[in-house]
């Protein structure tokens, strides 16, 4: 009996979940002290959560090149997971920075916001480091359930209620598919360990074309593609992004998307590598559809938040191109692109936080008329982020797209790369239109007062630094992304 306990403990290895453990401790501590905090004051909570994210960042960086395996092979803190953990932490950090003032302004200074962000980040970390479908599932659910609450955080606001409810119903629906896929793969391979599934399938080649394997793969993919917001599983995205509080939207568009990519890459490459011909031809079509539908629909939007939602669908399509290529350049391109996208998209949403009026943060294009002259700093910042989203050098967006399309060309998907570049050209139209409104239109009379506040400004400045650094000297980070491959 004692031997058994010792054996079990040997397998635990807390070092493998250290980053998420620290985050969860901070999250639970925040939940506890929220009880004693005066109502309506969340600044202390936001500072504590920033501290928690910073501590976790240090813990995460120390794990680089020191891979740990824990919990009987259910969790691996390898470089791949660490790279993604850094992305999640940056996303959460920028989000928390811009949230405090926003929550006060909108009249919902609820302390629960911060622990929920930390728990979402911890869930994302489990998705990135999960080497077993069970851990990935648990991470996905921790992430999703916290996000449902965050999306519906503004209880008295119908828009936010609606976002939360839609996200919940469709998210739970997609979880069902994900689980069914897991069950079928478990039935085929007799294990839920991703690498073991891969070994089993390569040892039993005839199982690859078994309908149960194929169905399992498809159902599993549906669950993740939903989270990434790939067409045709993207219908929730615009509604939820538009209705959720702006900082939550910013976080949702970067962190969870990267987490779902991390899990999808690990499962498809390690677990279902034998089926690559099948899934890459499927993802090829989905990537093209996603890019086109995202970009073309974005052209017709008049609400900027909704436009950014469609643009985020299009960006998921670009990143998917790297997964279709499935070679070193393509996959490390996804890692790089997710980091770049985190900076540029959260930056753009941070500008929207400062640009919105109280109680109405859905800026229309008209509302942006003359914005660049009224708020020079915000105008320049927004322009930088829009250039990055377009993929214009020397910004992060250009470097990211370059690596991803280079990966596609290396793998022989010339047409896919051409369609991707063509889509970048389409996207120029709606990104540039925002800038036309900002700089070439007369300001509107009823333009609301924009209150600058240090947290959001710091968040915007950090995002600008990130976008330019990744754009000017992408080599170093790209090297790290290559080292992160398993």
């Amino acid at each position, binding site marked *: 009996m004692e031997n058994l306990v010792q054996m079990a403990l040997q397998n635990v290895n807390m070092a493998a979940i250290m980053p998420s453990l620290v985050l969860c401790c901070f999250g639970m501590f925040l939940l506890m002290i929220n009880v004693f905090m005066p109502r309506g004051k969340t600044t202390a909570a936001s500072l504590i959560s920033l501290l928690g994210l910073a501590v976790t960042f240090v813990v995460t960086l120390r794990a680089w090149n020191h891979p740990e395996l824990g919990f009987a092979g259910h969790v691996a803190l390898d470089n791949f997971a660490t790279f993604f953990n850094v992305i999640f932490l940056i996303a959460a950090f920028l989000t928390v920075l811009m949230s405090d003032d926003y929550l006060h302004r909108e009249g919902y200074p609820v302390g629960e916001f911060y622990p929920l962000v930390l728990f979402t980040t911890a869930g994302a970390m489990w998705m990135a480091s999960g080497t077993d479908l*069970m851990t990935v*599932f*648990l991470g996905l*659910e921790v992430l999703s*359930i916290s996000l*449902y*609450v965050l999306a*519906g955080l503004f*209880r*008295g*606001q*119908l*828009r936010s*209620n*609606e*976002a*939360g*409810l*839609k996200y*919940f*119903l469709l998210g*739970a*629906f997609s*979880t*069902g598919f994900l*689980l*069914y896929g*897991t*069950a*079928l793969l*478990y*039935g085929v391979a*007799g*294990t*839920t360990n991703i690498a073991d599934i891969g070994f089993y399938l390569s040892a039993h080649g005839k199982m690859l074309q078994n309908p149960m394997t194929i169905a399992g793969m498809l159902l599993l993919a549906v669950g993740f593609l939903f989270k990434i917001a790939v067409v045709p599983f993207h219908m929730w995205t*615009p*509604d939820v992004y*538009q*209705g959720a509080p702006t900082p939550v939207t910013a976080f949702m568009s970067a962190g969870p998307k990267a987490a779902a990519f991390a899990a999808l890459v690990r499962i498809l490459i390690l677990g279902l590598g034998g089926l690559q011909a099948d899934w890459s031809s499927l993802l090829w079509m989905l990537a093209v559809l996603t890019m086109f539908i995202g970009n073309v*629909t974005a052209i*017709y*939007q008049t609400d900027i938040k*909704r436009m950014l939602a469609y643009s985020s669908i299009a960006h998921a399509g670009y990143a998917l191109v790297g997964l279709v290529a499935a070679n070193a350049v393509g996959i490390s391109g996804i890692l790089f692109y997710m980091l770049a996208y985190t900076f540029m998209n959260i930056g753009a949403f941070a500008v929207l936080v400062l640009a919105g009026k109280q109680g109405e943060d859905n800026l229309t294009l008209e509302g942006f008329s003359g914005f660049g002259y009224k708020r020079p700093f915000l105008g320049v910042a927004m322009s930088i982020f829009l250039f990055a989203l377009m993929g214009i050098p020397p910004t992060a967006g250009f470097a990211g797209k370059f690596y991803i399309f280079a990966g596609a060309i290396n793998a022989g998907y010339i047409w896919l790369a051409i369609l991707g570049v063509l889509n970048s050209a389409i996207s120029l139209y709606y990104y540039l239109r925002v800038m036309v409104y900002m700089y070439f239109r007369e300001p509107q009379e009823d333009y609301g007062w924009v209150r600058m506040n240090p947290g959001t400004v710091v968040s915007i400045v950090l995002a600008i630094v990130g976008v330019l650094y990744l754009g000017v000297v992408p080599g170093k980070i790209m090297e790290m992304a290559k080292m992160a491959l398993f």
Partner: protein
Amino acid sequence: MITVGHYLVLSAILFAMGTFGVLTRRNAIVIFMCIELMLNAVNLSFIALSSHLGNMDGQIFVFFVMAVAAAEAAVGLALMITFFRNKETIEVDDVNLLKW
């Protein structure tokens, strides 16, 4: 003789019923019940396969699924209540503020 195949077929039928219900029903709570039906169909598959393979992983997975489903229900019903407070309805056709 009831084999694992029978259980898998039953599970597939239940899952399909759940999916069909989600797509056709209009009341959010009924939709949520259909989602629960899907999850339980998956649980049935897991347990049948687990006993067929002589491997405990599937049964442990079911415990996790049940725990997660309970957490999901708590959050989901709370979201429905806040929506109901503001709009006095829970029909998904009335969830129509946000659209293109």
